[in-house]
């Protein structure tokens, strides 16, 4: 039972364009969401997060949008760079509990 779903296993985007990665969740108790980035042979690293009291959070080229009614969040990367090529995991947690539930990941390839 996948409570956090990333339905696109892969995405290819040209350098300079916008990358949009999507994530859906089913558990209404989730109220804090995170994105992690993972390069090959490395562990995931935290990228950006958003609380359910917000609908947008921005950090440089990265913006996360949250649509609570649709139980959907998205990560926008603008402009995309070759170094952004990695696997991106969406994760969710119910409040201050430490346990994160991860999606299956989306592999982003940014082409020249």
């Amino acid at each position, binding site marked *: 039972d996948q409570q956090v779903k990333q339905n696109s296993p892969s995405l290819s985007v040209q350098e300079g364009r916008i990358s949009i990665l999507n994530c859906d969740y089913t558990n209404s108790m989730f109220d804090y969401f995170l994105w992690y980035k993972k390069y090959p042979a490395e562990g995931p690293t935290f990228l950006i997060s958003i609380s359910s009291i917000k609908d947008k959070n921005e950090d440089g080229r990265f913006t996360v949008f949250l649509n609570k009614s649709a139980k959907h969040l998205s990560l926008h990367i603008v402009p995309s760079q070759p170094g952004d090529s990695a696997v991106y995991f969406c994760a969710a947690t119910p409040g201050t509990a430490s*346990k994160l*539930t991860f*999606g299956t990941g989306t592999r982003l390839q940014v082409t020249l």
Partner: protein
Amino acid sequence: DARVTQTPRHKVTEMGQEVTMRCQPILGHNTVFWYRQTMMQGLELLAYFRNRAPLDDSGMPKDRFSAEMPDATLATLKIQPSEPRDSAVYFCASGPGWGAKNIQYFGAGTRLSVL
């Protein structure tokens, strides 16, 4: 530069053998997590600890897997006996265990191959 350290980075073993993976969390972090990465399930939580006490190991096959924290600087994940289906990358992560951010810091992982 504080980081989570996992050993070994790679392990190849034969079916039936015992496997022990080790993790040194970031100093001062009081929550430790073990994950397994597979193609189909993504990052699955196997077990986690707070202040060295196990809080949730529901993701772990109890008959062959065990997780412990002998002290605050060491977490172990054991598989006995190992099976080919256990082949995966196992990650350890630690977190400060406070505040709303719930950010976890991951080690580089142990790639396990069971032949």
